[in-house]
């Protein structure tokens, strides 16, 4: 039972983080498609902002790599708890960051000079994914 819990946490950590990044980057990417129709000059700004939510998936993957050597049978419940929480944090962090980036992209396409500020606002939800990664690495 412990082992099953441990593996569940392990898998959810990777899976939820990846799902979050997928959704976040898609949200921003969809906004970029619309923005390209309106203002194709700034396509590189859209690309950078669309790539920002990709981070959480990478963090989930790094934590996954770090956990590969762990003893799942002995620490099952612990790994389940931390794994699920890390996964959930990365999931929501990425989705919301994607929404912030999408709004930033729309703003840039309308001619407002918001790129730098958008990157700062996007980094705010990302901070919690970083904390989650540190937590995963600490246990």
């Amino acid at each position: 039972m412990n082992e099953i819990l441990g593996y569940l946490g392990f898998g959810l950590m990777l899976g939820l983080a990846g799902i979050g990044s997928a959704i976040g980057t898609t949200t921003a990417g969809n906004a970029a498609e619309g923005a390209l129709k309106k203002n194709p000059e700034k396509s590189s700004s859209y690309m950078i902002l669309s790539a920002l939510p990709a981070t959480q998936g990478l963090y989930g993957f790094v934590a996954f790599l770090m956990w590969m050597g762990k003893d799942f049978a002995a620490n099952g419940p612990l790994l389940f708890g931390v794994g699920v929480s890390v996964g959930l944090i990365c999931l929501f962090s990425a989705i919301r960051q994607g929404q912030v980036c999408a709004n930033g992209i729309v703003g840039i396409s309308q001619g407002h000079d918001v790129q730098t500020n958008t990157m700062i606002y996007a980094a705010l939800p990302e901070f919690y994914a970083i904390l989650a990664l540190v937590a995963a690495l600490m246990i």
Partner: protein
Amino acid sequence: MISKMTKYSFILLSGQTDDFLSKIQELGVMDITRSRKPVDENSARTLDWIAESRRTVEILEKLDYSNDPNLADIHKAYKNAIVPEDAVSFVKEQTDALETLRGSITAAENELRLRAPWGNFDSSHLKKLALSGYELHYYSVPQKKFDESWEAQYPLQVISSDGKNVWFVVVSSKDEDFVFPIAEIPAPGGSIDEAQEYIDGLYYQMSGIKGRLLRAKDAIPALNEEYGRRMSELDLYLASAASQKAAEDMVTLLVGFAPSSEDGRLSEELDKMDVLYIAEAATEHDNPPIKLRNNRFVKMFEPLTGMYGMPVYSEFDPTPVLAPFFMLFFAMCMGDAGYGIILMLFGLAVHKKWINIGMFKGLGPLISTLGAATFAVGIILGTAFGVNLYEASWVPQGLKNIMLVGELGGYPTQMVLAVGIGVFHICLAMTIKAIGYTRRFGFKANISTWGWLLLIVGGIIIAALSFIGIMSSEITKWAVIAIGVISALGIYVFNTPGRNPLVNIGSGLWDTYNMATGLLGDVLSYIRLYALGLAGGMLGAAFNNLGNMVLGDGGFGWIPFVIIVILGHTINVAMSCLGAFVHPLRLTFVEYFKNSGYEGKGTKYNPLTLTKTE
């Protein structure tokens, strides 16, 4: 490096403006301050024409009817076609007509399919039948529902059946009240021969249009020439529109910038013209256009800086720092020596124009350089084409000695390296920020920045020195205290001299919160260099495993093995390249530019010249 610019202010009589601007255009180095977008109807119309003509040339260049079944007809039309002067509207007309025709053909082919079961007949016979007072009713039912007894009860004739459905007609006189158990379907509009004829006619028309479009290809060189001419005309127009008028429109004022290296030549030429001008060194306040001047290696990376934005005149050009680090990050994200070799060859092919894809035009040397770096870093990381070089028996021990494997402090060495590089990169950014801001705004305004720099970079250097063992713990303790005190004074007390010290402390605390959270996030962001490299390597290894499984004992297994390995690694190279391009770019734009205080609000140097390509 940002080229030094000289600001020229011109005063000329309004009547001379056009002449003057043409002469400036011939010189080709003066960037007259002007709008980049159309300013009125005239310029907007020219820009529209320019965009249309670009699209037209693109459409014409892509035309290829060599596989068209009606090639003979197309050729005939081509020989007889005449293209009018206005090629752009002609092509638009023809392509629109082509679209409409395509729609008609689809509708006609549908009609043909509907008529197919009724076979061939002579419509005139049907008319005669109607004149005689009889009418036909048309039906189609599934085979199962067809009641054989109907044939006895009604004057019914089965026309065709394909095993699934039956098509039949029933004759009735016009006067009788005709009733049949099944609902009627509409009569076919004509015979299938007639439908086919109609379709053939449409195809013939289409060939005509295609032939004329082919003939329009001849107009491409003329279109390109006209395009160039209109571009420089538009530029001239925008420049004169940007001029300021004074003294009741008798005098025109213009501002322009040129690289200071052209000062001698320009003053000679300008003296020959009848204009009054003042030449002075440009300052940040003037917002001069930015021309970057770098060595050949760094020059390849200038498009990346352009993607974010040109530096402001008094900033440092970020490209010389961006170049080596982007190359390093790219190599770490690809993380495979074999892929490095592929990239070097690809870059060579693009440079020699053996491969001609629009997206990579002019990027050959950059791709090869990135490939070379990837090869070197791939060896150090110990991966080639997904094969773990450290565990391979055929790799010489000397090479294995430089590979980074194993663990350092409980974490994989490569991960520690990635984070370490991140720390170095950010420290470099902060140093550049301190130096740059001091140069622009003076020391007094930046005490806080220097305080943070001292704390962080000083702290890291001391930690490193004591870790290596050069400094004893006594000295380390005193050094830490000294640095701590000095930087705290700078951050909390003196950060804005002349302001209430309590407000200073408050803003210092706010800075501390931002720094702590920001720096932690930024440093950990560099973990992606490790993650991406590892992911690429593992994916390559997975494809190798797949290939090995299919290979089995050899023999015919080699064919699927080769297919899987080549396909797999090609996909992996493409996806790794995408990731290795986007993520280092993000690291540079977000982490590095933020910590180095880069604004990037400059405009690119865009002189008035005769030949324009953009």
